[in-house]
């Protein structure tokens, strides 16, 4: 643990709260197991003393801003999380004036489970090219020059090389385990519809019963709604209780959106997202 960085974070949080710049600070604290971390909502300076930051701080805290709309909040943001800020700014879901962004330099986060932290970086961190958050009000910690591996989508390309039948079998097995707890949705910073299509009753798009075909419909549309919007924080996969490899879906669309529309989500708060724009001369082969 970088105590110097943690002291900086606590000091900043304390002054923001005491000066009344923000109502609360969303950050991380040590979880009950003494090893991993969990989100902390600090509303006074004594709570701010519990703030920490280390390589177990995996949560994308930007999601919580959606529940605090209208309130002035500070939020701790890793470089990857900052793309979610850009996404929500782009979609006019948060007010930049109401959010104080505490950017933190991040050496990458590791795989964790309760009471245990591994030494290996998460896959998304291994290919992360961001050395600092894309948007912040204050940057704490060091900007890190990283030796990132290039994202080659090798696992996606492998799946694409297989037959359509074997892919069908693969996903049928995966989706048959889905219990539709909707944790993937609840944790996603891009999922904020007041009424989700999965909960509409008229028409009933997704049947109530937990059956493979309903699960498939849910996962397909959930992922497709995030096409060109998913910022790759991979929180959905992390929280999935039945370990469905959701990153294989999200990154497939990320790859295709990059190829088809030359777009990556969360990099620019002003660039129109791929499904809000078009070019007249593109894709002449489709439909002719």
């Amino acid at each position, binding site marked *: 643990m970088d105590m110097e960085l943690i002291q900086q974070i606590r000091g900043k949080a304390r002054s923001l709260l005491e000066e009344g710049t923000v109502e609360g600070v969303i950050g991380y604290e040590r979880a009950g197991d003494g090893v991993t971390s969990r989100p902390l909502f600090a509303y006074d300076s004594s709570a701010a003393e519990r703030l920490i930051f280390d390589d177990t701080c995996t949560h994308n805290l930007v999601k919580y801003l959606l529940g605090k709309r209208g309130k002035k909040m500070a939020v701790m943001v890793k470089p990857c999380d900052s793309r979610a800020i850009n996404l929500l700014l782009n979609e006019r879901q948060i007010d930049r004036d109401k959010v104080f962004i505490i950017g933190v330099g991040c050496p990458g986060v590791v795989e964790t489970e309760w009471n245990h932290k591994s030494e290996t970086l998460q896959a998304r961190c291994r290919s992360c090219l961001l050395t600092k958050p894309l948007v912040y009000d204050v940057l704490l910690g060091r900007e890190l020059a990283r030796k990132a591996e290039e994202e080659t989508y090798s696992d996606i390309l492998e*799946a*694409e090389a297989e037959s*359509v*039948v074997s*892919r*069908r*079998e*693969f*996903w*049928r097995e995966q989706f048959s385990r889905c219990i539709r707890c909707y944790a993937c949705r609840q944790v996603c910073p891009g999922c904020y519809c007041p009424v989700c*299509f999965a909960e509409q009753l008229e028409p009933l*798009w997704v049947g109530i019963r937990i059956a493979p*075909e*309903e699960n*498939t*419909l849910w996962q*397909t*549309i959930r*992922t*497709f709604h995030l*096409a060109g919007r998913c910022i790759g924080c991979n929180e959905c996969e992390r929280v999935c209780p039945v370990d469905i490899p959701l990153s294989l879906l999200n990154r*497939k*669309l990320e790859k*295709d*959106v990059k190829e*088809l*529309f030359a777009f990556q989500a969360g990099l620019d708060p002003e660039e129109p997202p*791929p*499904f809000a724009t*078009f070019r*007249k001369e*593109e*894709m002449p082969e*489709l*439909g*002719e």
Partner: protein
Amino acid sequence: MSAGYQPKVIGFLCNWCSYAGADMAGTSRMCYPQNIRIIRVPCSGRVDPLFVLKCFQRGADGVLVSGCHPGDCHYTEGNYHTRRRFALLREFLDYLGIEKERLRVEWVSASEGQRFAELVADFTTELARLGPRS
């Protein structure tokens, strides 16, 4: 086409061009396979990927989304959005195990009755070749 297996096709046709094109095929007494069930939508941009998924879930073998030719959309730009959306959805369905040939995006104008009839015949033949969805 084999006499036994008859693929089920759902066609989403836009009100202004493709539906009128299908109507043209009908009033001109052209013959085309009866496998298609047509759903009229105000614009091909109205077709939500959810509609397509729901069709496949409920047993459709193929889905046709058809609108005005690019540049001719009644709402100026609806079909450009359709094109982007379904270009991506086709790839994604294929990745999940539904052959991309089962989802077709086509442009049919109000005067192209002949084209519509040929399109449905061609699509039905292709779906018969692919066989029932497992």
